């Protein structure tokens, strides 16, 4: 798979550079670039074959980022808010593909909210990253639907509408993997991305990712400074690949250990709490409590790793992919064909 160089290769024989992309064209210091870095790192470390990666997106700053990672994967930058639908199509066409969709708060909480909701409801096997900065960057700083009430825009306007909490929404929609990260917390995010890849179903990663140009000022509730001040970790997440040894033995009551379908393990250790990420009501409760306190709660909030994913529920993962199907796979026998038509006589 790889050419002979001195560059280190992963378990699948791919170099780190196979997972890199074009140089970013986003603003210097953009939170999105931190997320990109962690995606590169996670996919490299997990040994995902890059040519099986499909990178989908909609429109917006976040939707440009698939060009900045895994250049040996296939990019599909679609239309505004419609990343979920093209992702579902690709996954149905070829279930071996590993889809990662990158979206923004404009994409997923406004124009494409319907597709977001139905994606979560369907539990399509993919990683769904929302790079959430509370603002429309490409059109120069309008509020988005995830912006908190009372937040101030760069020109001093105050937002009088309540924000949409994509994590709480996902849980009520039947989401099976709901997590929130912060772009500047690399350690947590790397574990979250790996866990998201290991999850079989829609892994929703709402990453607060400050916009350094339009939403990083005094009065913003998504500035780097504000988020650092208000970020409260719900849990510490350990990701253990199938070939790795856990760092320490997990004692009952101390942490929750979750075996994932691909053989990896998540070790979820509550920070000053005993929240079990399998507890749906508890998940909504911790979200609401932290919200009341004005905190930004990050970590793995909810997981239901045993729910069937969309393709499995639909029974469409055939020995061959849909893309490979030929005439013999698609057409009935001549006798059945003629018999069917005869029923209209």
């Amino acid at each position, binding site marked *: 798979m790889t050419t002979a160089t001195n560059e280190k290769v992963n378990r699948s024989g791919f170099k780190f550079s196979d997972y890199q992309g074009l140089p970013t064209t986003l603003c210097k210091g953009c939170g999105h670039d931190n997320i990109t870095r962690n995606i590169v790192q996670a996919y490299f470390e997990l040994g995902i074959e890059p040519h099986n990666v499909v990178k989908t997106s909609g429109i917006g700053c976040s939707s440009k980022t698939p060009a900045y990672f895994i250049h040996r994967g296939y990019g599909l930058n679609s239309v505004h808010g419609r990343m979920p639908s*093209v992702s579902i199509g*690709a*996954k149905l066409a070829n279930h071996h593909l590993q889809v990662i969709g990158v979206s923004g708060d404009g994409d997923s909480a406004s124009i494409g909210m319907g597709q977001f909701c*139905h994606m979560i409801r369907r539990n399509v096997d993919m990683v769904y990253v929302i790079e959430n900065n509370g603002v429309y960057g490409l059109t120069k700083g309008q509020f988005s639907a995830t912006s908190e009430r009372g937040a101030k825009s760069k020109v001093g306007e105050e937002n009088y509408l309540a924000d949409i909490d994509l994590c709480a929404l996902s849980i009520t929609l039947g989401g099976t993997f709901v997590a929130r990260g912060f772009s500047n917390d690399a350690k947590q995010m790397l574990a979250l991305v790996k866990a998201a890849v290991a999850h079989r179903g829609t892994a929703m990663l709402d990453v607060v990712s400050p916009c350094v140009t339009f939403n990083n000022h005094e009065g913003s509730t998504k500035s780097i400074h504000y988020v650092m001040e208000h970020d409260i970790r719900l849990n510490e997440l350990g990701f253990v690949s199938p070939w790795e040894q856990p760092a320490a033995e997990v004692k009952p009551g101390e942490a929750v250990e979750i075996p994932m379908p691909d053989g990896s393990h998540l070790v979820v250790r509550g920070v000053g709490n005993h929240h079990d990420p399998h507890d749906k009501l508890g998940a909504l409760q911790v979200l609401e409590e932290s919200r009341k306190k004005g905190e930004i709660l990050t970590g793995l909030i909810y997981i239901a790793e045993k729910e069937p994913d969309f393709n499995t529920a639909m029974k469409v993962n055939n020995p061959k992919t849909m893309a490979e*199907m030929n*005439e013999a796979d698609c057409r009935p026998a001549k006798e059945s064909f003629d018999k*069917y*038509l005869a029923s*209209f006589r």
Partner: protein
Amino acid sequence: MNPPPETLTPTKPQTPARVVVNDLSIEVATVNGTGSQSANNILAKSLFRMGIPISAKNLFPSNIQGLPTWFTIRVNKDGYTARKKELDWLIGMNAATWEKDVAALRPLAVVMWNSNELADAPVTARGDLVAYPIPMNDCIKNLAADAKLRKMLVNMVYVGAATQLLGLDETVVLKVIADNFKSKQKAIDINVQCLRAGIDYAKANLSKQDPYRVETMNANGNKILIEGNTIAALGCLMGGATVMGWYPITPSSSLAEALIALAKKHRVDGTTGTIRFADVQCEDELASIGLVLGAGWAGARSMTTTAGPGISLMSEFVGFGYYAEIPGVIFDVQRVGPSTGLPTRTAQGDVTAAAFCSHGDTEHLVLHPCSPEECYEFARISFDYAEQFQTPVFVLLDLDLGMNFWMSEPPQFTNEPFKRGKVLSPAQLDELKAKGEKWGRYLDVDGDGIPWRTLAGNPHPDAAYFTRGSGHDEQARYSEDPEVFKRNLDRIKKKIEGSRAKLPQPVLDTVPGAKIGIIAYGSTNNAMREARDQLTAAGVKTDYLRLRATPLATDAIDAFLKTHDRVYVVEQNRDGQMELMIRGVVTTPGSVDKIRHVRHYTGFPVDARSISDGILAQEQRR
């Protein structure tokens, strides 16, 4: 015209002055949701199985239950099966429309009605109709205890009475009933009893006073009676559709549902139990087309089914498919617009909306089937076109073609291989590399404007690329360079232009000495033979060019205009959408001035008389 009979006592025997065999239109005026559909289908199917050419149409409301519905059957020995303007035989079952239904009848038309439910007065007041009152409730009152069931079964009484009065072959009717209810013997028995009740009542109480009779013919050969949507679904199965995203919308839903049923039967893996077809009922049409393009991009033969409002919603994505060059098939079963319009009525109103769907410069491949045969065939080959041209392809049916029953030759099974277009394998990429050539996703290496593509999952180091709807160069890299942008757009134009000669070509039908030409397409064709016969009888001989696709076959249209004095474009929309496109491609000087038109846009399918009268009026004015 004969003077109307003075009284209409049904028991008074009268011998009809003349006999009309196998030529009438029957209309059942009923209420939707009352179970009349199966009775009507039995009547239509029985006539069809007697070997007489027929068509059957359901004129239904946009409603679930309780609103007026009219089911019409055209019986015609000459094979004229378009809607007939004049009604010959009314079966009245709906009190709400009864007075209007009777008032609309021409003198000497026949009317049969349920006299337990509908008043005799409107018929007697007119005095110029042939009247067959039947107390249908009474006929079956001892046959079923359940009032709700009786309400459904009462419809079989008129099937029985019509069988008796028109002379249908009883053994054929009985066989159709048996086939209709398959192995449900109880249902067969009770329906046969009600049929007999109708036959017996007519025998005992009604004497034949009308001229209409049906007689067994042998005109239908091997033909089937089928709706366009149903047979288009079979075309999709045979064409290799494997992924479908759709949103329910009249009049297209039955296409999607027929295909789902076929896949459940013919696409199940015997070992794994998995299905070689994925259908997703989407949250809206935007998601449908997104799913289609996602799947087409990843290499599956993908499709959606929709109608006009869906096309409007899909338009942004369709432009993305055009510009990013992604295959996918869109079935648009046209209904009446603009806006919600008449959801359960027919039109050819999406011709330009489909052809130029989306903002910016676009033009799409659009197929216009005219018959069940072409619904099947065009559905099947639409997937070839989509993959060969790497672009969204529309197949335009309409409600009349899609949801009504048409006679059709059964399509032949085919072993023709799929034409999957230009897809590079890892080995082919290796060959290119060995030759020192660099593959580019949007590079025109063959001079036909069609580039080569790779599919996600192809492990070759050169295979991956980035698809986007924003400006891009031959290597699929983002670009805002004005020259690059223009070059790419021109190449796509070249690709689409190339389809003119490859799409289904127009069908020309000429008669010696004709100076007048007619151009039509799609379901309008079904009235054309009759209309042209009417025109010939009136002294106007016509040649006929039937269009089957856009972008138009320019040469054929140019030649047709050149060789005729006047050419009438007949279509079922207000603004002459196809005429507009024809005018856009005609190159011969003077030809455009020869173009005339007849346009029909009431929501009802066009009838032959409207076409022939429309042309005659313009020819006589000259």
